[in-house]
């Protein structure tokens, strides 16, 4: 098997995630798209680990997974706060920072 099979799969998944982050308005769905991006990164890490015949790739993927879990937990807490304050989780309506 080619290394590039896995790297290209990771690239496709990454770009789909970027599309989701850009186009979605629902806060929960933006977080789902970020999960797609993190999974793309993990595929790359594990593929490189196997390619270089080292356990380092898997070790780094194991660091990414808890970071993703923490990110989702904090992200959903923030989305929940936004929902409580505004009764909506439309991320495009959060424009108070605009001058």
């Amino acid at each position, binding site marked *: 098997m080619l290394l590039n099979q896995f790297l290209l799969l990771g690239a496709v998944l990454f770009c789909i995630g970027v599309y989701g982050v850009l186009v979605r308005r629902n806060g929960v769905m933006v977080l789902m798209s970020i999960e797609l991006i993190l999974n793309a990164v993990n*595929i790359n890490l594990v593929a490189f680990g196997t390619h270089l015949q080292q356990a380092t790739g898997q070790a780094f993927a194991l660091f990414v*997974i808890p970071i993703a879990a923490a990110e989702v937990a904090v992200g959903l807490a923030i989305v929940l706060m936004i929902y409580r304050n505004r009764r909506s989780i439309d991320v495009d309506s959060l424009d108070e920072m605009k001058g």
Partner: protein
Amino acid sequence: MILADSGLMVAQNIGFAVIAFMIVGAAIRVVTTDNVMHAALYLVMVLAGVAAQYILLAAEFIAIVQVIVYIGAIVVLFLFGIMLTEAKLGKSDDLDNKPMRPVAIAVAVALLGLLAYSLVDYYGDDQLALAGQTTAELGQTTAQVADSVFITYLIPFEVVGVLLLVALTGAIVLARRD
């Protein structure tokens, strides 16, 4: 083209292709479906497919972690998020920022072109040395991963533990009603 070049390991390549198509199809549905609940369930398909790809890469430990943490915990967290924000179940047409779509498609396609070009240019036909190797020779057994995490990367591991504690405490403080 890519599959034909690697004459060896036909079964693995067919498995890769089937799972890869499943992942890409489900991922596209995650970002295009107009039903929040369906997006969460398509996300399960993507995560399960990625776990299967880890098995193909001889990384069985991380595949199991993927199933437990992502499918077991993170997807449940998402479903709770959907429930607590009282999202409209069934179709809703305000999930997408529609004027943004052409821009987002352009950005994604340009990024994919750039990434694919540089990957094909640099890694070309590099083979994964999977054929005829044991998992131990590839350095991918759970014991070798444990040695790497708990010896080489012990301090980052502890930092990640503290970070997880801090982040989850912060999430509880944020989400608590008071």
